[in-house]
């Protein structure tokens, strides 16, 4: 049974995992939260040691055929500056990141069959996998056969966030494009597993549905994938909405006090999964969340194509109803591509690594080499 069917059946609400997780999400006193945090830290140390895996996102393209109300790359945002890096430019960005210390990169792109095609992605992977040990993808959902060719080209991980597990809210926010299909996205992780991805990343975008309801569905998804996709390492991300083009106002809130509780609840329920923390969160909060169960962090991130080296600026344009329109800029000046969302922790990778060491954590840049597969 695919996850979408299991999810629809509602039987997951009867599981022991659901019952325990739900209890952990109930409002806690400060002392109760502290107790959860202590246990979460111990479990994380036991399973992952005092280590933190570091990675960087590399944006390939901000073209997108989907209309998603909250996303800076939404096709309705006609005023944003769009760029698709050539494979050569992707390599330039990747070499910059390797020079910064990264050995694990997440290639991110909007969903666009023309600009972000199969052959384009394969070409990028071909160029990168000879010098980057671990490559993951965060791209529009695909069929298993298409994933298979990307795995063969050297992709190790696949990340797809459901955004929201609430069908109705999902329908309201995704008004056009292939992303409208809730179930197609929901079963994406399983298709990726069938194709042989070694790492699967899922998550929900917090700020759309009630955080507790969202988290319960996310936990059901984790529980399902751990049973059905047992050979892949599973990571979970808990991104909160950040300011972006389109000025979408969050519909709900996951407060700074609730985020740690959610991290602890996930850690206590699923001791061996990876928990990812991005630069969406500010420095002070990130440092505080590290010991509670985080295993993977990005650092020094840019969320626009060419953000690290300025690559691709000469191709900057607007996309209006599918057509490229020139960007009006002063003569001889190039406008950089627009970011997907604003980051909150602007520290350099070296500064983040140094802070980790001060906190007694060994920063791990490389954890596996795809070339050994």
């Amino acid at each position, binding site marked *: 049974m695919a996850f979408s069917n299991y999810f629809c059946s509602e039987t997951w609400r009867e599981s022991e995992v659901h019952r325990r997780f739900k209890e952990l999400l109930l409002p806690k006193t400060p002392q109760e939260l502290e107790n959860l945090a202590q246990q979460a830290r111990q479990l994380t140390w*036991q399973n992952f*040691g005092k280590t933190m895996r570091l990675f960087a996102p590399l944006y390939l393209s901000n073209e997108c055929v989907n209309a998603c109300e909250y996303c800076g790359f939404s096709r309705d945002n006609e005023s944003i500056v769009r760029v698709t890096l050539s494979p050569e430019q992707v390599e330039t960005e990747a070499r910059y990141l390797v020079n910064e210390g990264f050995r694990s990169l997440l290639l991110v792109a909007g969903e666009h069959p023309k600009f972000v095609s199969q052959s384009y992605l394969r070409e990028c992977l071909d160029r990168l996998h000879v010098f980057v040990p671990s490559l993951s993808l965060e791209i529009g959902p695909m069929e298993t056969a298409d994933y298979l060719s990307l795995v063969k080209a050297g992709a190790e991980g696949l990340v797809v966030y459901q955004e929201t597990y609430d069908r109705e809210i999902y329908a309201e926010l995704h008004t056009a494009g292939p992303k409208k299909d809730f179930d197609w996205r929901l079963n994406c992780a399983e298709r990726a597993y069938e194709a042989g991805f070694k790492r699967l990343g899922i998550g929900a975008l917090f700020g759309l549905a009630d955080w507790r309801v969202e988290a319960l569905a996310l936990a059901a998804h984790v529980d399902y994938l751990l049973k059905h996709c047992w*050979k892949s390492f599973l990571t979970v991300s808990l991104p909160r909405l950040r300011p972006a083009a389109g000025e979408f106002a969050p519909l709900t809130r996951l407060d700074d006090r609730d985020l740690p509780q959610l991290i602890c609840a996930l850690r206590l329920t699923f001791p061996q999964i990876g928990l990812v923390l991005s630069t969406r969160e500010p420095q002070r909060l990130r440092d505080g969340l590290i010991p509670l169960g985080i295993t993977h962090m990005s650092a020094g991130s840019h969320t626009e194509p060419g953000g690290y080296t300025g690559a691709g600026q000469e191709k900057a344009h607007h996309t209006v109803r599918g057509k490229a329109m020139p960007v009006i800029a002063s003569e001889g000046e190039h406008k950089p591509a627009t970011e997907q969302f604003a980051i909150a922790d602007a520290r350099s990778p070296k500064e983040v690594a140094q802070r980790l060491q001060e906190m007694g954590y060994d920063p791990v840049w490389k954890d596996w080499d795809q070339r*050994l597969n």
Partner: protein
Amino acid sequence: MNPSLVIAGKRLDSRLLVGTGKFGSLSLMKETLEASGTRLVTVALRRADLNGKREVNILDYLDASRYLIMPNTSGARTAEEAVRLARLAVTMGLEKWVKLEIHPDPRYLLPDPVETLKAAEMLVKENFTVLPYINADPVLAKRLQEVGCATVMPLGSPIGSNRGLETRAQLAIIIEQATVPVVIDAGLGAPSHAAEAMEMGADAVLINTALAVASDPVRMAHAFRKAVEAGREAYEIGLPSRHTRAIATSPLTGFLE
């Protein structure tokens, strides 16, 4: 008195083997190894650069004159991946010793018996000294000995679980039938677990998580060192047999004498 541990002809004057993962820093790892008195340490290769370099090289923190440095294949999910990792170790200038671990399940890191046997055969043919990490399966242990492994390393409980000798009954059979040293690996969370393994007749134990995540890894290493020595000494002396009932000091059949 106290004969040393010999693996594949190599004499080691400590029965405590130590893993180098999960430490908060390499300098803390180094101090911990010193306090443990170990002579054999295992190192994960998956974090090494394939050209044999690493920004901060763990090997710089390991004194090769003091320790036998044994690469491990953690992260490998198939026999082929494990064999490639072992060959990589040779190109990095390490000895042809390998702790063979293959775990397709990234959650409990339980070893795959089919792939492990396959990889062991391949590596032995390539003249590696192979120390396979296995579940506590006596038949698999025998099969691995038959293909030429230098030890068997059955688990006490899953890696990092600190649950001790949950597989005790199976371990006893493995030890009884062994023609090579038996190293109890994984799950030993307290010095008493290590002592218990040694009292049972295990030739050595391998510890990692219990040291790396202790609040004071150096002192914990020292505690494990003493426990391993105590357990071994007790085994050599021979523990008195256990009884379920009290044995009267004035026997009931004394009148017959």
